[in-house]
């Protein structure tokens, strides 16, 4: 069942489909293990359908709630899937260092550099040391998320007479105005079960990119500067000022870490609104109330930069999923080639919740204006940086950093929080 009939919709690069047909994988199997479940799974399957249709490969996609755990087990035990797609560079790095990944080769790296927006950033992201300590290009980016977004309700803004802020300074002023009007500016929810705290790390990273040069960001992520470097502590402080201020956040500071990140944006749409602003990545509309129309009932703006720091340009924080070859077969090679085709991106773009830094795609294929706008933010970025917490070692990026954020919103001084995280980092070295 192909979603779009090949050749029928002009938005797609159908020529790619014909190219693909030349690859004959009949009788072969291709197992893909990815992070997408639920609606996303249906979408990815619809894309993969074209690959198997064209090549004749017997394709199996699977995912799991415990996919992180499972990929470790499967690869370690020697029964990996052919292709693994994962959103965590840290995990990928580990797999690479254990020699469980197949390098994609220099020409692929070169291809990414040339064809992706902020291409070098993406290449760097997918380059890891292998078992022998030799660097190689292992992970091909497919599907990105833009994180530096602030969501709001245009109606509420209109009624209250608020304008979309262009700079951090304006944003600050807007917050104060909202408070003065008797409202609450922000809805923040850090709750995510065992992963509670992560939304704050995104925000802090966003602040880092807006207060420090990208090099400092990179050093921070690699712990080349300590976590309790004044640069980091400063960023933490900025966030803490918002999140620990009962007037600034809906429900008060105590609610911040207790509210589920999936629930918190709903405050934007309640009557009367519980808040006016929500900082979250591009995926969040899935958690807006049913029937919410993007662009009409809800919209977003780029998390602004400081007018006082023009030299930093317009940095974009993002994330994405990276595809790797975990078992080197003809089919898995062919699959990576497939990802290099615009069609592979457009098919998903057209169905929503997909942004890509691939420059050759037809932007008209985006399902909505909102996505298109995100795509533009992504391609217009002066700097692109991957979610720092995902780059840090698991124990930090998916552990101490999260915990630190919870401590931070719990009122612990930023310096202490940073020192704690650094201590944990020291412990795992």
């Amino acid at each position: 069942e192909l979603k779009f009939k090949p050749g029928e919709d002009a938005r797609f690069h159908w020529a790619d489909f014909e190219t693909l047909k030349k690859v004959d994988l009949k009788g072969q199997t291709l197992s893909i293990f990815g992070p997408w479940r639920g609606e996303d799974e249906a979408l990815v399957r619809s894309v993969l359908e074209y690959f198997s249709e064209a090549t004749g490969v017997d394709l199996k996609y699977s995912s799991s709630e415990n996919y992180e755990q499972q990929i470790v087990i499967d690869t370690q035990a020697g029964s990996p899937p052919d292709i693994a797609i994962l959103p965590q560079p840290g995990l990928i790095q580990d797999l690479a260092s254990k020699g469980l990944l197949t390098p994609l080769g220099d020409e692929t790296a070169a291809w990414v550099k040339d064809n992706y927006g902020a291409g070098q950033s993406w290449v760097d992201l997918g380059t890891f040391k292998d078992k022998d300590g030799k660097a190689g290009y292992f992970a091909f980016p497919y599907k990105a998320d833009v994180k530096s977004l602030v969501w709001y309700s245009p109606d509420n803004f209109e009624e209250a007479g608020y304008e979309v802020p262009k700079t951090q300074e304006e944003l600050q002023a807007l917050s104060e105005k909202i408070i003065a009007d008797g409202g609450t500016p922000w809805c923040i929810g850090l709750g995510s079960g065992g992963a509670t705290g992560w939304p704050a790390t995104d925000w802090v990273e966003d602040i880092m990119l807006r207060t420090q040069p990208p090099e400092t960001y990179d050093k921070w992520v690699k712990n080349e500067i300590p976590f309790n470097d004044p640069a980091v502590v400063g960023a933490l402080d900025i966030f803490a000022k918002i999140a620990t201020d009962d007037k600034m956040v809906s429900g008060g500071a105590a609610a911040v870490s207790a509210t589920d990140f999936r629930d918190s944006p709903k405050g934007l749409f309640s009557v009367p609104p519980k808040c006016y602003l929500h900082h979250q990545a591009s995926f969040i509309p899935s958690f807006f109330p049913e029937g919410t129309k993007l662009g009409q009932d809800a919209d977003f703006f780029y998390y602004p930069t400081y007018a006082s720091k023009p030299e930093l340009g317009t940095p974009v924080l993002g994330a994405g999923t990276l595809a790797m070859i975990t078992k080197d077969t003809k089919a898995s090679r062919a699959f990576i080639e497939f990802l290099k085709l615009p069609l592979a991106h457009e098919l998903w773009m057209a169905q929503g919740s997909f942004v890509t830094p691939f420059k050759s795609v037809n932007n008209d294929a985006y399902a909505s204006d909102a996505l298109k706008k995100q795509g533009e933010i992504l391609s217009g970025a002066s700097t692109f940086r991957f979610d720092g917490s995902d780059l840090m070692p698991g124990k930090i990026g998916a552990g101490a950093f999260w915990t630190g954020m919870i401590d931070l919103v719990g009122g612990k001084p930023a310096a202490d929080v940073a020192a704690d995280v650094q201590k944990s980092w020291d412990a795992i070295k």
Partner: protein
Amino acid sequence: MTAQILSAVFTIIIGVGGCVVYFWTANRLLDVIFPSRGVSGAAAIDNLRRQGYIRPWLFVGPAMLILAVYLIYPVVATLILSVHDRTGQNFVGMANYSWAFGDREFLQAIFNNILWLAVVPAACTFLGLIIAVLTDKIWWGNIAKSLVFAPLAISFVGASVIWKFVYEYRGEGQAQIGILNAIVQYFGGNPQVWISTPFWNNFFLMVILIWIQTGFAMVILSSALRGIPDETIEAATIDGASGFQIFWKIMIPQIWGTIAVVWTTITILVLKVFDIVLTMTNGQWNSNTLANLMFDWMFRGGGDFGRGAAIAVIIMLAVVPIMIWNIRQANREGGGH
């Protein structure tokens, strides 16, 4: 669909049948090789003696084999891993252990685990026992039991959702969607962030496990309770014992062995439990436990097998006292020849 069902039925029959066939043929074979019926006295007795040597092994053989493959082999692998580094390649001696006992988080986890061990097995066993006894006396006991049992049938994911709707916190003055806070607010209290209040959150997590495992204790204890000879209870009634006294002095001592089993099982479960901690807090807010810590080190971001394994070994060592206690218990009861 029917084809699927047929093949499933076929598979099931093969699986279960294979097992039955093993025991049946193995024992038959023993009878055939060393016949005891229809041969002359002395030979029969000799054969029977030989059977006596071999048959226990036929009985425990499959269990031993499976235990060896599925548990002992991994335990050995774990032991080996625990003296290697994160990749499992390089020998590091006791470094992982010395790291563990210097790690703040690990010590916190030990402390929490002790709390859990002190509270959960006792609570589950006690509540399970009470419910088992009480439900035995009423006509709707089976329904009541099923309701208490139900949490056990809910997956951990389901359970975490359920408890989310219990502990959920919304800011003061807002409509609470967590029933606990709704009650607190109804009575004029301030809503609490139950799950992220260090130390006390341990107890709120324990409540979940107690809620789940009480059904377990109840089921096992209730089957044991029914094995108590009625006459002893009748005798006690006549001796003038009240319901309470019968419970404490007649019933409990007679099912003491089963209580020990339940207690041990839950204790061990507590040592192993991580799902609740993982889904509710992932060990944040000082609520980590050893099992979750192990899981964390094993799988998070690629994992550190050495440290994960070291923690696993420590968990396994924690069971030694329980083991000794149980063996004593088993010896005391006698049982068998």
